[in-house]
């Protein structure tokens, strides 16, 4: 028996001289063991019970080459056990806000999904959900999806009928700016399958209103906060925030404000802060240059660890460190643009060479165009970070280098952050979410 290649060994905070923490990047399992156990693995001196436990948790393997072969085949295995048909649906590319860093940038406009496209989309989802599925899961996205709330109601009613007749479950979530997420609307959508909403708040009102104003120029902070306060009793609300190098240190003030306003950890679904990503010149809002294009930017290490600790030490929940395949790798996950074009990643919307089909003609082969096997090389397969990286982000590589060739290696980033993240996950185990 050998130690898995996808295992990290860190010093335990509890007893750093004598014990260590083992973290499996394959499945996020964590154990604390005496340092001597590592030697006993190498010299084959484990007890039967210890060997059984370590095998079950994925820390031991019979054969390293076999483990690599299993890793190579992982996406096919996930496709085979995936019982959900998932689509992220871009209902429109319109918005009532004028965010300085808008992700859709110049792709935005008064473009809305038509009834005809909705009919095709319902057919597409119906066909997809018949492939041995027991769940239809949709994220309504935009633009601002709640500018198309009528379509959400219409689609959800129709999908619920299909789901009921096929004995499937139908649920949906919203990625919304929160300005239109009123209690009345949440109450209307919840019985139709609304599971949760993700709302973005970029720090306190001074930062937020600068980065996320209404199109009129008026600040949106008070409107969003008011809605989140009213709606969080009806559905779980995940709070996200997008920071820059210049403002990330002030984001914890938002957490204190939420707490003071009664949005305490038990009333909020979870909190995640992310760096603003910089779109390419083709699509970026013209004067915005503060976004990041690589996890290799040194300030991100400090920002990520600092903000995660601030979230957790106040008692808010956040996502744990997990194996994380890229959405492009999973067969039954799609992004549907308002016009019926099909993509594999929301970052690729409007990039014609990465359109993988449309609702009229179906999905074409995208294996080569999306470089799906980029991580199936000896260097990546031998890297202990592979299951939490899988070659990095193809979209970020595309924005940075103009192509998806090769990989977006994140080894230096994980060298810098993973130990602290894993120790945070242990320290705050009750607040760490796996979904």
């Amino acid at each position, binding site marked *: 028996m050998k130690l898995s290649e996808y295992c990290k060994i860190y010093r335990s905070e509890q007893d750093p001289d004598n014990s260590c*923490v083992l973290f*499996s990047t*394959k*499945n*996020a*399992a*964590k*154990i*604390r*063991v005496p340092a*001597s*156990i590592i030697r006993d693995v190498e010299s084959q001196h484990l*007890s039967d019970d*210890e060997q059984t*436990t*370590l095998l079950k*948790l*994925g820390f031991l393997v019979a054969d390293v080459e076999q483990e690599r072969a299993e890793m190579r085949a*992982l996406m096919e*295995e*996930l496709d085979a*056990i995936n019982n*959900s048909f*998932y689509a*992220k649906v871009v209902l429109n590319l319109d918005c009532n806000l004028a965010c300085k860093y808008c*992700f859709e940038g110049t792709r935005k406009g008064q473009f809305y999904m038509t009834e005809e496209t909705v009919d095709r989309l319902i057919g597409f989802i119906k066909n997809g959900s018949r492939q041995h599925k027991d769940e239809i899961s949709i*994220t309504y*996205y935009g633009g601002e999806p709640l500018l198309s709330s009528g379509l959400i109601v219409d689609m959800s009613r129709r999908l619920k009928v299909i789901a009921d007749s096929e004995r499937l479950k139908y649920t949906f*979530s919203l*990625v919304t700016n929160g300005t239109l997420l009123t209690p009345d609307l949440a109450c209307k959508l919840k019985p139709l399958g609304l599971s949760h909403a*993700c709302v*973005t708040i970029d720090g306190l009102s001074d930062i937020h209103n600068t980065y996320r104003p209404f199109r009129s120029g008026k600040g949106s902070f008070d409107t969003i906060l008011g809605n989140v306060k009213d709606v969080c009793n009806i559905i779980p609300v*995940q709070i*996200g*925030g*997008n920071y820059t190098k210049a403002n990330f240190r002030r984001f914890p003030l938002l957490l204190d404000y939420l707490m003071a306003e009664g949005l305490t950890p038990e009333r909020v679904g*979870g909190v*995640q802060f*992310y760096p*603003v*990503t910089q779109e390419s010149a083709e699509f970026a809002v013209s004067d915005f240059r503060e976004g990041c294009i690589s996890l290799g930017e040194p300030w991100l290490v400090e920002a990520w660890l600092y903000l995660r600790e601030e979230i957790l030490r106040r008692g808010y929940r956040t*996502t744990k460190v*997990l*194996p*994380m*395949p*890229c*959405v492009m790798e*999973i067969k039954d*996950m799609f992004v549907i643009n308002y016009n019926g074009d099909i993509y594999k*990643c*929301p*970052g690729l919307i409007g990039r014609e060479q990465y359109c993988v089909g449309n609702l009229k003609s179906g999905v074409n082969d995208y294996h080569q165009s999306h470089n799906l096997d980029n991580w199936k090389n000896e260097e990546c397969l031998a890297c202990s970070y592979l299951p939490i990286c899988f070659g990095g*982000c193809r*979209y970020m590589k595309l924005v940075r280098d103009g192509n998806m060739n090769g990989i977006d290696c994140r080894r230096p980033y994980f060298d810098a952050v993973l130990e602290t993240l894993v120790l945070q*996950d*242990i320290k705050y*185990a009750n607040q760490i979410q*796996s*979904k």
Partner: protein
Amino acid sequence: MEKRIVILDEGLDKKDMLDTICCPGAAASTAR
């Protein structure tokens, strides 16, 4: 003999990995 392995987290099943898919878009990259 005293147990030497303290299990802190039993980890995920493979199926759970389908709930942690990564996609960009700032706050939109939260798991579905």
